[in-house]
């Protein structure tokens, strides 16, 4: 089957890329002058964050497409849901790797670094979105509500980002230990390419996950439609037997 080839290729490609990344990140690239080897966490932390934004980007675009009457189709809502779920998984990982990194440099599990804080708000925001998706109701109204919620969360993102950044940079001037230089050390040469490799690898993985998650959601939808057809048939039978 055609499409199974693409996912298989995509799957093997992303695994190969991730393996290469691991080697490059843990062995080949040099340690950082201040952080020593802890800097190696950047090779997964930054790519995870990139995919996080990509996933929520897909959700936002799909939600807009669903809301536009011309392009309205259930598949967009299904895609939005699939991408959002993957996005939340990646956001969780960004927070985990971020806090581990914080631990290595300040001995504390959580630093109110602008980007980490924004990610935390994003995490809760889209957990709410996923909760809303599971509430149920008839497909059309449910899909419309999901799309509006996704956009409402989407337009909130830049505001959260801006406010948190101001908050941290204002605070920053006073503290000696400048979180900025530590969490975003100057990367050069092979380190830069490894981060790029990381982003590429994780994007491939994201594509693979999205296709499969999308198909799973389509199946779930189809099974719901099956139940609907059966209910419709039973309902029609009711009329013949004269019960309510």
């Amino acid at each position, binding site marked *: *089957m055609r*499409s*199974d080839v693409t996912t298989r290729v995509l799957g093997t490609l992303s695994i190969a890329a*991730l393996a290469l990344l*691991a080697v490059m*990140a*843990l062995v080949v690239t040099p*340690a950082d002058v201040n952080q*020593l*080897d*802890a800097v*190696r*966490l950047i090779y*997964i*932390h930054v790519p*995870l964050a990139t995919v996080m934004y990509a996933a929520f980007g897909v959700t936002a675009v799909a939600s807009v497409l669903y809301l536009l009457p011309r392009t309205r*189709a259930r*598949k967009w809502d299904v*895609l939005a849901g699939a991408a959002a779920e993957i996005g939340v*998984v990646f956001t*969780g*990982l960004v927070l*985990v*790797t971020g806090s*581990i*990194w914080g*631990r*290595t440099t300040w001995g504390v599990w959580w630093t109110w670094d602008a980007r980490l804080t924004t990610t935390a708000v994003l995490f809760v925001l889209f957990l709410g979105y996923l909760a809303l998706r599971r509430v149920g109701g008839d497909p059309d109204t449910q899909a419309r509500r999901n799309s509006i919620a996704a956009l409402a969360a989407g337009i909130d993102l830049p505001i959260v980002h801006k406010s948190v950044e101001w908050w941290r940079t204002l605070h920053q001037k006073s503290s000696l230990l400048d979180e900025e230089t530590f969490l975003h050390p100057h990367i050069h040469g092979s380190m830069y390419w490894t981060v790029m490799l990381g982003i590429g690898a994780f994007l491939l*993985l994201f594509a*693979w*996950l999205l*296709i*499969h*998650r*999308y*198909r*799973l959601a*389509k*199946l*779930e939808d*189809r*099974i719901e439609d*099956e139940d609907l057809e059966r209910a419709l048939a039973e309902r029609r039978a009711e009329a013949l037997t004269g019960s309510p």
Partner: protein
Amino acid sequence: MTHVGYLIAGYGATFAVLASYAAWIVSKKRALARELPPEERDPRWP
């Protein structure tokens, strides 16, 4: 090699979570697929 523990934790957690998430998707897809007539089993890309 410093912070080895943290590196293992970071990389380990990331790959473990992603691998199990991928496995969960595939297994659930197989489980649901059995309930559907074969020709509808693998819906194409939109």
